[in-house]
């Protein structure tokens, strides 16, 4: 028996003893053997039934680690959206990337216009029919305007992971990151990501229609 086969055999020993199998490199050729061993394991008594202690401990862990996020209901008013979007525009323009926590920050009193902020036309209304989106780049903000059944919204088109410039995927109605295989929906939420770390949603930008132009609050 070769050394390689012994390593595979030890990996299978771990599996059968219900221990975490050790790392194993260079096992491409034995992939099928390992897959069969994994499948065979599902025939053992009690396989696939979670330990009630695990179920309870994970429930407590979720409550502890994510309660603040899963329990929070960021019901954003127009005013809050406008305010946070305006801040998002200003901050994004300054080269900072915002996390989704920002959107649920307390709303400042009144409708906020960031200092130095101004409405910038980024597209003609006619260029963005309902259900479509258009990228824009005004030199300080790179973003996306979306026509949701006649209502326009805008968001940053800079990936919240490492700042790569997102690409519009019109067919799938999403923004794709060319750097690490992540994608965002047109509402800024994360559709999928490759990286294990949390990936914040895209910051929203305040948008309005003014004389057949879509304008975004930017600096």
């Amino acid at each position, binding site marked *: *028996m070769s050394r390689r086969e012994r390593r595979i055999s030890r990996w299978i020993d771990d599996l059968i003893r219900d221990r975490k199998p050790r790392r194993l490199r260079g096992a491409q050729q034995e992939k099928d053997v390992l897959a069969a061993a994994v499948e065979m394991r599902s025939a053992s008594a009690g396989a*696939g039934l979670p330990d009630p202690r695990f179920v309870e401990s994970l429930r407590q862990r979720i409550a502890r680690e994510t309660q603040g996020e899963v329990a929070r209901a960021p019901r954003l008013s127009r005013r809050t959206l406008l305010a946070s979007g305006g801040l998002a525009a200003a901050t994004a323009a300054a080269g900072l990337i915002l996390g989704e926590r920002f959107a649920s920050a307390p709303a400042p009193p009144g409708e906020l216009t960031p200092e130095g902020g101004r409405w910038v036309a980024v597209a003609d209304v006619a260029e963005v029919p309902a259900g479509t989106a258009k990228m824009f780049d005004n030199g300080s903000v790179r973003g996306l305007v979306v026509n949701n059944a006649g209502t326009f919204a805008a968001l940053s088109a800079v990936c919240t992971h490492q700042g790569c410039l997102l690409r519009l995927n019109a067919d799938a109605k999403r923004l794709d990151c060319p750097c690490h295989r992540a994608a965002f929906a047109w*509402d800024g939420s994360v559709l999928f990501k490759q990286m294990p770390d949390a990936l914040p949603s895209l910051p929203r930008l305040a948008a309005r229609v003014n004389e057949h132009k879509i304008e975004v609050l930017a600096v």
Partner: protein
Amino acid sequence: MEPSSGTDDPAGSFHVIDGDRPLDWEAVYRENIASIYRLLYYKVGNQPDAEDLTSQVFLDALPRLRSGASRGEIHMYLRATARTVLATHWQRRLGVQVTTIDENIGSPEAPEPPADPLPRIRRILSRLPANYRRVLELRFLERQSVNETAAQMGISAGNARVVQHRALQRAFELGQEMVS
């Protein structure tokens, strides 16, 4: 580290992060914990990894879910997250995708995997040569050690490992034939 192609698109185009009401995450957890754990256990074959990956799935997905999603969408989103978590697991541990979760799993085109995998395994075992079947039964069903298995079969421990290796290779091939 780049996962192999086709394993990085967990959520497809599901749109489950909409909505602005709080999610009853405990209800989502109760409803899905058993099926997600089982799915992952069948894909990694051991309890510690199944627990780790299940934890990752819920910790990753729950904060992003909102109540606007239907139960079916939530379930599919959790499965999609499990698909990515599993792919990352194999990539890190072995550098090769030993098992995968079907991209369209749970969809009408790809029905749910059987709740009880035993009948399929019994069918595979029944088609194996006698010594191959014996070694797998002793090792995987009766969970005997290599030495115990070797003693029962009247062969050396080294030989038992070789027979086990060949038996698993053949079992995999039979399983593939049964799928097709």
